[in-house]
C-alpha cells in the first residue's frame, strides 16, 4: 500500500498545483515563456534586430506595444527574443548544480564516509561566500560571457543542492523499506534509483524550481554588470543595463524587461511554494 | 492511610450561598457551526467556595475544552457559541477584555498539563512567577521576584533564591509543575483550574504534586476544577464529579455517589475499568470501542454504541439530562426511569 501511495505522489502534486489558481497561472506563465523561447521569431511583431534610428524611445503605440529602445528597435520583440535566454540560462545553472550536487548528495547521504566529509567541508567553504561574490570569482577564472556566468552560478548553487539532497537521502535511508532493501542485497545503484530518488523527488523539485528563479536573477545581475550576456545578444538583464544608461531620456524603459523578470521569478517561486505545500500537506495526513 | 472517597476534604461542605463558579449551558463549536452538534454541548455545573470538582472522562470528551473556555483560553479554531460562565457573579464570556484579564491569574489561577511546553523557555522561572504579581498588583520587578522566591519555597522547591534564576529546561518535570503552581497561586486565587496537572509526570511525582495541591487547597481555601482521567485522583481529591462523554455531561454527582451509586452506564464502565485492588491509575482505555470524534456523534444516546445496557428502541433517541436528587443528575433515560440499576465499586 505504501508503495502505491508513493508512486502516485507526482500525480497528486501536479493536481494540487493545477487546482490552485495562483500556481495554475504560474505554470501557465512558464509554459508561455517556454513557447516564446521556442517559437519567438514566429510570433514576434517585429524583427528584434531591425533599427529605426529616426524612431528612438518611441512611446507606447499600437505598432510598438511597449515602445522602442535607444536604437528604435521594438521592445516587445526584444523581450520575446530575450525569453530564450530567460529559459536557457537558468537551465544551465540548475543543470550544473544538479550534475554536481545530486550524485554527491545521494552518495554522501547513503554511504556517509569520506565523500560525505570532504564534500560537506567543501560545501561549507563555498557557502561561506556570498553567492554573487563566489560567482564573480569563478567568472574571473572562466572569463565573462553568458555560458561561463551561468556555469559559475551553477557551481555556486551546487553546495546548497548537495545539502538538500544529502539531508533528504539521509532521512529516507533510515526508513525501514530502504534498510530492508539493502539487507536483501540491493546494490547501491539500484537502491538509489528505485528506493531513494523517487522519495527525495519532492524536496528536490521544490529546490530546483526556486533555484530557477534565483538563477534568472543571478543572470540578470551578472549581465547588468557586464559579465553575463555580451552584445549583440540580449537578455532582460542586459536590456535593463541599456535602459539604465538611457534612464534620463526614457524613464519608462526600465519597466518592460524588469516586469518580465519579476513575473518570471514570481512564477517559479509560486510553483515552488505550491509544491512545498502540496508535499507538506501529504506529510501531515 | 488513604481516606475513602469524599471524606477527607475538610472544607468540603456545600455552602448554601451563591456558587463561586457557575457554568451554564456551555456549548463550544467550530466557527460557522461546522460540527453539529457542538464539540461540547450544554455543559452545566457549579463550583462552591473551597470545593473541588472533577471533570472526568476519556480523551476527546471535551473536558479540557470546557476548562479552557472558563478563562476564554480556547484555541483560535474553536469558540463558545452558547452558555455563560459566571464567576463571582460576572459572566466571563461577555465581560470586557479588561475584566477578563483581571480575573486571569488573579482570582482564578490555572495549571496546565505539560509543564515543559507551558512555561516560557526564554524566561527565568522567577520572572514567570513574578510576572503575575507585576501584572495584577503592579509590583516592581525586584519586589515581585522576592515574593516569587517565597512562593517557590511554598511549593516545595529548595534553595528557592537560586532557583529563581533558572530556566525551565534546567528543571525536572515535577519542579516545572511546581513552578506552574507557584505562578498560579501568586495572587492568592479563590479558584484553581488544573488541566490534567499530573498526567505528564512520573507516578511518584504525581503523588507529590497532588499532595502539594491538597495542602494549598487547605491553606488557601481554594476551590478547584480538576480535569483528569484518573479515578484515583478523583477519589483522593474531589468533592463533586462531572462525568463527560463525547461533549455531553453524562452524570453529575458528589464523589460518593459516583463510586457507590453510579447513575450512568459510562460512569459504571469507568469504575469497572479500574482494577478493584486499589488506586491504580489507568488510562481508562479498557472500555471496548472508542469515543466518537466530534461530528460523528450518534443521534441518540452518545454512549449507546459502547454501552452494555443499551436497548435499541430506547437508546436511539436523544437522552435528556434528568435530576435524580438535589445533587445527582444523569443523562441516561433508562436509569432515570428506574429500568436500570447499576452496580457501584466494591468497597476495597
Amino acid at each position, binding site marked *: 500500500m505504501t508503495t502505491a501511495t508513493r508512486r502516485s505522489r507526482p500525480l497528486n502534486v501536479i493536481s494540487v498545483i493545477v487546482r490552485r489558481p495562483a500556481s495554475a497561472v504560474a505554470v501557465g506563465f512558464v509554459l508561455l515563456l517556454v513557447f516564446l523561447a521556442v517559437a519567438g521569431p514566429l510570433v514576434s511583431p517585429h524583427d528584434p534586430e531591425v533599427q529605426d534610428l529616426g524612431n528612438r524611445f518611441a512611446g507606447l503605440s499600437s505598432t510598438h506595444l511597449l515602445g522602442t529602445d535607444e536604437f528604435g528597435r521594438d521592445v516587445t520583440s526584444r523581450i520575446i527574443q530575450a525569453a530564450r535566454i530567460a529559459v536557457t540560462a537558468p537551465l544551465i545553472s540548475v543543470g550544473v548544480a544538479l550534475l554536481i550536487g545530486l550524485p554527491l548528495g545521494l552518495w554522501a547521504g547513503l554511504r556517509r564516509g569520506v565523500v560525505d566529509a570532504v564534500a560537506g567541508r567543501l560545501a561549507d567553504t563555498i557557502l*561561506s561566500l556570498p553567492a554573487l*561574490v563566489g560567482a*564573480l570569482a569563478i567568472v574571473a*577564472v572562466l572569463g565573462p560571457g553568458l555560458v561561463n556566468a551561468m556555469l559559475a552560478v551553477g557551481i555556486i548553487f551546487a553546495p546548497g543542492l548537495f545539502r538538500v539532497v544529502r539531508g533528504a537521502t539521509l532521512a529516507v535511508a533510515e526508513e525501514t523499506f530502504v534498510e530492508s532493501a539493502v539487507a536483501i542485497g540491493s546494490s547501491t545503484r539500484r537502491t538509489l534509483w528505485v528506493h531513494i530518488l523517487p522519495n527525495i523527488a519532492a524536496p528536490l523539485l521544490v529546490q530546483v524550481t526556486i533555484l530557477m528563479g534565483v538563477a534568472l536573477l543571478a543572470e540578470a545581475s551578472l549581465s547588468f*554588470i557586464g559579465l553575463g550576456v555580451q552584445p549583440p545578444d540580449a537578455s532582460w538583464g542586459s536590456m535593463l543595463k541599456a535602459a539604465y544608461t538611457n534612464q534620463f531620456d526614457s524613464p519608462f524603459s*526600465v519597466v518592460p524587461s524588469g516586469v518580465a523578470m519579476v513575473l518570471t521569478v514570481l512564477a517559479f517561486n509560486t510553483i515552488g511554494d505550491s509544491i512545498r505545500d502540496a508535499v507538506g500537506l501529504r506529510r501531515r495526513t | 492511610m488513604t481516606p475513602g472517597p469524599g471524606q477527607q476534604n475538610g472544607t468540603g461542605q456545600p455552602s448554601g450561598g451563591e456558587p463561586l463558579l457557575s457554568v451554564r449551558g456551555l456549548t463550544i463549536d467550530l466557527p460557522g457551526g461546522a460540527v453539529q452538534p457542538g464539540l461540547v454541548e450544554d455543559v452545566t455545573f457549579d463550583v462552591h467556595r473551597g470545593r473541588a470538582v472533577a471533570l472526568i472522562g476519556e480523551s476527546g470528551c471535551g473536558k479540557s475544552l470546557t476548562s479552557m473556555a472558563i478563562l476564554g483560553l480556547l484555541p483560535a479554531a474553536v469558540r463558545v457559541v452558547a452558555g455563560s460562565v459566571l464567576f463571582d457573579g460576572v459572566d466571563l464570556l461577555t465581560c470586557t477584555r479588561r475584566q477578563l484579564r483581571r480575573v486571569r491569574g488573579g482570582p482564578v489561577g490555572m495549571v496546565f498539563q505539560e509543564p515543559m511546553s507551558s512555561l516560557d523557555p526564554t524566561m527565568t522561572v522567577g520572572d514567570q512567577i513574578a510576572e503575575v504579581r507585576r501584572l495584577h498588583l503592579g509590583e516592581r520587578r525586584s519586589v515581585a521576584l522576592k515574593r516569587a522566591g517565597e512562593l517557590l519555597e511554598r511549593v516545595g522547591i529548595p534553595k528557592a533564591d537560586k532557583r529563581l534564576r533558572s530556566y525551565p529546561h534546567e528543571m525536572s518535570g515535577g519542579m516545572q509543575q511546581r513552578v506552574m503552581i507557584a505562578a*498560579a497561586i501568586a495572587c492568592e486565587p479563590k479558584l484553581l483550574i488544573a488541566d490534567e496537572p499530573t498526567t505528564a509526570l512520573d507516578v511518584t511525582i504525581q503523588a507529590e504534586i497532588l499532595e502539594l495541591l491538597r495542602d494549598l487547597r487547605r491553606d488557601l481555601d481554594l476551590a478547584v476544577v480538576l480535569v483528569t482521567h484518573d479515578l484515583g485522583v478523583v477519589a483522593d481529591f474531589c468533592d463533586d464529579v462531572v462525568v463527560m462523554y463525547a461533549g455531553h455531561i453524562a452524570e453529575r454527582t458528589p464523589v460518593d455517589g459516583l463510586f457507590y451509586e453510579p447513575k450512568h452506564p459510562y460512569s459504571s464502565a469507568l469504575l469497572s475499568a479500574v482494577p478493584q485492588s486499589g488506586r491504580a491509575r489507568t488510562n481508562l482505555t479498557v472500555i471496548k470501542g472508542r469515543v466518537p470524534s466530534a461530528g460523528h456523534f450518534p443521534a441518540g444516546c452518545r454512549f449507546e454504541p459502547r454501552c452494555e445496557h443499551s436497548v435499541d428502541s430506547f437508546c436511539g433517541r436523544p437522552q435528556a439530562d434528568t435530576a435524580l436528587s438535589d445533587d445527582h443528575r444523569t443523562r441516561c433515560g433508562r436509569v432515570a426511569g428506574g429500568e436500570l440499576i447499576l452496580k457501584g465499586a466494591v468497597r476495597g
Partner: protein
Amino acid sequence: MSPRMIIRRLGGSLLVLWLVSILTFLLVQLIPGDPAEVIAGENATVAEVARIRTELGLDKPVLEQYFNWFTGVLHGDLGHSLSTNRSVVSTIAEAAPATLVITTMALLVAVVIGVSAGVAAGLTQGSWVDRAVSTLATLGIAMPSFWLAMVLVSLFALTNPWLPATGYVDIREGFGVWLSHVVLPATALGLATAAELARHTRGCVADVLTRPYVRTARARGASGAWLVRKHILRNSAIPVVTVLGLQAGRLFGGVIVVEAVFGISGLGSLAINSVLQRNYPMIQGYVLLSAVIVVLINLIVDLAYGWINPKVRTA
C-alpha cells in the same frame, strides 16, 4: 555559551577561512592555459608575460607558491594590483567604507521594515495587514535589487529631484549629505531582505502564538503589548536571528550590483573592474575579505543566538 563551545566555534570559523584561502589561491592556478599569458592579455610582449610570471611567482612549484602567498596573507600582504601597482590592501581599504556603510544601512532597513511587518502580520493573521504584508513580501523576494534601485532612482531622483541619483559621500562631509546619498542604495538593497525577513518573522510569530506557554501567559493575565514584548518577540527572535545571518551575507553580494546602479566606487565596482581586467590579486583580496566578513557575521549571529536562547547559553 560555554567557553568550550566558543572555542570550538572559533576553530570551525578559522578552518573555513583557511579552506577559503586555498580556494582563493587556486583561482589563479585554475585559469585555463598559461595564467601569466592570460593575465598579461593578448597584446603582451614576451617580456611582459615573463614579468608577470615572476611577479606572481608562477614559475615556482605550487606548494611553494601557496606557502609564500599564505604567509603574505597572514602578514596582511595581499600583493599588488596589476593595473595600478598599488597595494591590494590599501586599495580595498579605500573602497571598503562606502560598501560597508551601505550594506549595514541596508541591513538596518531590512530589520526595521522586515521584522515589524512580519510581527504585525503574524499577530493579525488573516487580516488585511497580513494579506498586504504577504503579497508585498512575495513580490519583494522576486524583485532584483538593482531593478528596484533603478525604479527608486527614477521616482525619487529623476522624476522628483529629491535625492541624488549617484555617488557616495563620506559622513565627515556632513550628516545630511551623507544620509541623502545612502538612503536610496540602502533601501534598494535592503527591501528584498526585508521581504524575506517579513515572511520568516510572520511564520515564527504565528508558530509561537500556538505554543502552550503563550496560553499560560494569557492565563496569568498577560495581554497586548506585555504579551508581545515579554513572550512572543523573544521566542520568535530565536529563529529570526539565524536567518538574519544568512541574509547579511547575501546583502554583501547584492551590494555589488547596487553599487553599479548608483555609480558608487566601493568594493563592488572594484570587484567588477578587477574581474573585467583579470586583476587576480585584487580578486583574491576581495574574495578573502568577503569570506572574513561573512564568517564574522555568522560568529556574531551565533553569539547573539546564545544570548537570546537560554537553552544554548547554559548548555
